[in-house]
């Protein structure tokens, strides 16, 4: 068997070494370097794209969250405002009621005292009227009574009669 094992052809060794090293140098320069760089570059860009997509997603989630938070806050605020407004309204109504009541009471009181006054005044008027009328009547009666001399004398006589000189 002639396998060349014991006697590897040095010519083939020599040319293989040259061919392989030449191939290594040429491929390194013209193939592996640009290819590995391109692959690396592309992988980096894909990674970057994925990372930025992830970031955008996070940003989106953050924004949504923020929006929700804002909405919730706004809703809570609205509730508070509504509640406050209701309270204020109730307060106002209650105040107004109280005010109206006191005012009304005051007015009634005033009216009552006015009426009392008026009544008093009217009564006083009536009294004075009555007195003046009575005086008038009395005067007229007297006048009528004492129109004649006789009568006057009779009266005087009468009076005198009563008057007993003691």
């Amino acid at each position: 068997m002639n396998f060349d094992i014991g006697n590897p052809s040095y010519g083939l060794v020599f040319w293989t070494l040259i061919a392989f090293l030449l191939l290594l140098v040429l491929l390194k320069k013209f193939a592996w370097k640009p290819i590995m760089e391109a692959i690396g570059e592309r992988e980096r860009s894909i990674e970057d794209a994925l990372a930025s997509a992830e970031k955008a997603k996070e940003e989106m989630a953050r924004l949504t969250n923020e929006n929700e938070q804002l909405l919730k806050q706004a809703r809570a605020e609205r509730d508070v405002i509504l509640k406050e407004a209701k309270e204020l309204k109730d307060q106002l109504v209650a105040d107004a009621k109280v005010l109206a009541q006191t005012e009304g009471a005051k007015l009634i009181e005033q009216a009552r005292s006015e009426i009392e006054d008026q009544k008093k005044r009217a009564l006083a008027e009536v009294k004075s009227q009555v007195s003046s009328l009575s005086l008038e009547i009395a005067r007229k009666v007297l006048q009528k009574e004492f129109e004649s001399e006789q009568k006057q004398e009779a009266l005087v006589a009468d009076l005198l009669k009563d008057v007993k000189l003691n």
Partner: protein
Amino acid sequence: MDFRHFFDSKKISFIAIFAVLTTFSVAQTADSATVATAAASHGAHGDEKFEPTKVIMEHISDAHDWHLWGHTSIPLPIILYTDNGLEFFLSSQFHHGEQDYVGKYYTYRLVDKKKIQVVNAAGAVDEAASKKVWDFSITKNVASMFLSVIILVLLFSSVARAYKKRDGKAPKGFQSFIEPIILFVRDDIARPNIGHTYARFMPLLLTIFFFIWFNNLLGLIPIFPGAANVTGNIAVTFVLAFVVLIVVNINGNKYYWKHILLPDVPWWLYPIMIPVELVGVISKPFALMIRLFANITAGHIIILSLISLIFVFQSLAIAPISLAFVLFMNVLELLVAALQAFIFTLLTALFIGMAVEEHH
């Protein structure tokens, strides 16, 4: 070293298949070889005696011309470095070994279709003078290798151009066929075995992987431009393993050398341990060399043996069976071609990883 990534479900089946196939193919080689020799010893009928061993050996070994068909072959340049100077001539001058060639300094004869020897005036081989002649010829293997180097450079520089042209876009066409392989070498071979310094060794690993794979595939083509058994030649695998040996030891850090020269054993064991470790330095690439050579050569021998069966039995009836087996073996060899490239690259990455590993 972390091997866990090789044991996830998908890969374990891959490795298992590989193990089974390797054993199977080695066993097959032995069987076929015995059958072939046995058949040959019985002797074939007819004028021309068919010798399968000779035919097979001729096919798997190197040659000074590139056989095309029949008696037609491409002559290849012969380059001889003699003690007097360089000699250049075409292998066609030998007329397939039938004639001697009278060169500038000596007369040369092609012995056994591959060995060039000096012939003296009497027409006998001059052993002393032959030893002074160094054969640096462009043989079939060298030519085939140059061809594959040219094709690989053209192929991958065009892929690189595609990357430049389609910057940042998804791969397309041939580029999309190559990219997963490159990424496989990077993510499954280099990165897990070497660690964070893997990028420095990527050109070497990729070159080794594609060089071996492409030459394995070229070797499976039975006609020109294939037919050369490049990766099944021990000289070629020796060079590849030698490059690995150099790269591993140049890049070995202080922990690597400490492990070899000052291992963690009692001092009186050093006389045993240090030689063992030094043998380990050599034996790792040596195993690479033998594994690739043996696997590829074995595959070629099996296929040629199966073809030879037709001629051994001198019966056309055997052809369908033979061809069915050959077809099966060819498909298997397609797998082995990629697998051996993978194994060689993986072990290279592993050895580099062991040499550059940082101990914290």
